[in-house]
């Protein structure tokens, strides 16, 4: 099934996509994710010491490409900032959710709204984040970025988006949410199979 038509950019059928400028970066991000997130893309402007988790500045179109190309049963995309108190309060729940479901292929895309990527990286390192994350590319204005991610999103932080295996947006939360709320929606889209029954991990409540 071609995923293009189900891409969130086309969710409402009203947005345009600047594919060419984003192709290389999106491809680099995809390759990076496919490699198990061990190495940052070849972007010297974003080079970081090995102790900090890699971070890439992406536009909305590039982020949408990365979601589509993740080939994951579910992608949780969270908009946050180090200065956003409710974002910081909900982050442990998102990290725990990711930890519990990453073996099933679920990916967590953290997108920082910080002005300085180092701030985000240092904060994420302190939370033992070991996977690549993203930062809003400030060459794109805030309204364009917001519209490019999801037309129904007001622009409030935090905001979390759940995409299914086809890259289709299936749920959006504005404001702080709980582990249980995120997990409930996640379990709805993880397809059950004999080898992989969809149940919360041991010790977690459904």
């Amino acid at each position, binding site marked *: 099934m071609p995923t293009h038509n189900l891409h969130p950019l086309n969710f409402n059928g009203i947005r345009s996509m600047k594919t060419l400028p984003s192709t290389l970066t999106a491809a680099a991000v995809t390759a990076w994710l496919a490699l198990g997130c061990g190495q940052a893309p070849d972007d010297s402007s974003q080079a970081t010491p090995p102790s900090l988790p890699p971070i890439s500045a992406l536009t909305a179109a590039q982020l949408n490409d990365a979601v589509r190309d993740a080939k994951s049963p579910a992608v949780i995309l969270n908009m946050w900032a180090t200065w956003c108190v409710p974002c910081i309060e909900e982050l442990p729940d998102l990290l725990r959710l990711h930890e519990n479901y990453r073996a099933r292929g679920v990916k967590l895309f953290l997108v920082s709204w910080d002005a300085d990527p180092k701030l985000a990286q240092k904060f994420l390192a302190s939370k033992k984040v070991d996977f690549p994350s993203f930062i809003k590319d400030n060459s794109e204005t805030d309204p364009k970025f917001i519209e490019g991610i999801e037309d129904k999103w*007001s622009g409030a932080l935090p905001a979390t988006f759940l995409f299914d295996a086809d890259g289709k947006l299936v749920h959006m939360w504005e404001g702080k949410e709980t582990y249980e709320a995120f997990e409930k929606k996640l379990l709805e889209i993880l397809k059950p199979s004999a080898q992989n029954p969809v149940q919360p991990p041991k010790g977690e409540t459904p």
Partner: protein
Amino acid sequence: MKKSASVLFAALALAAFTLNAAALELGDKPPKTDVKMKGTDGKDYTIAGVKGAKGTLVIFSCNHCPFVVAWEERIAALCNEFMKKGVGIIQINSNDYNRSKSDTPELMAQRSKERGFEFPYVVDATSEVARAFKATVTPEFFLFDADDKLVFHGALDDNHRNASAATQHYLKNALAALLKGEAITVHRTKTPGCTIKFRE
């Protein structure tokens, strides 16, 4: 059965995506205009009471939000200017200050003085005004014309971090057009900001 299930699914999906939609449409009148809200000067204000001859601007804002802080000097300058030109302005803090400690009335008064707000900065003590507007973030601007019809809902401009880098001055353009009696070209924009911490 299949059809009804898919209809139900579609309805639920639609509900999920409309929860955060702005309730006020262009042309709507402001709700809760008679709710008394305490200002940082100790006086009670209502939206009806601040109505201006040229129109009324209702701002949902707060103290703590970094987006507000980044935009606040611009908000003060623009609103002070247009208040003198006949636009009634009220800035409402609907946050529960038990959850957001920097949003107490005392700190609001301090902020108002520091920024030189010449318009009322008031407490929405039950968050009912924000709920009625279906406001979701701070800062969020609702501009009504002289007939109390909504003509603009959105953000101040397109760059909260850097005033000199802003290329689209949404609110200023809307205010200027309103005063000139010209058509407002951008009626609705995204509103980057912090979620309102509603009182339970």
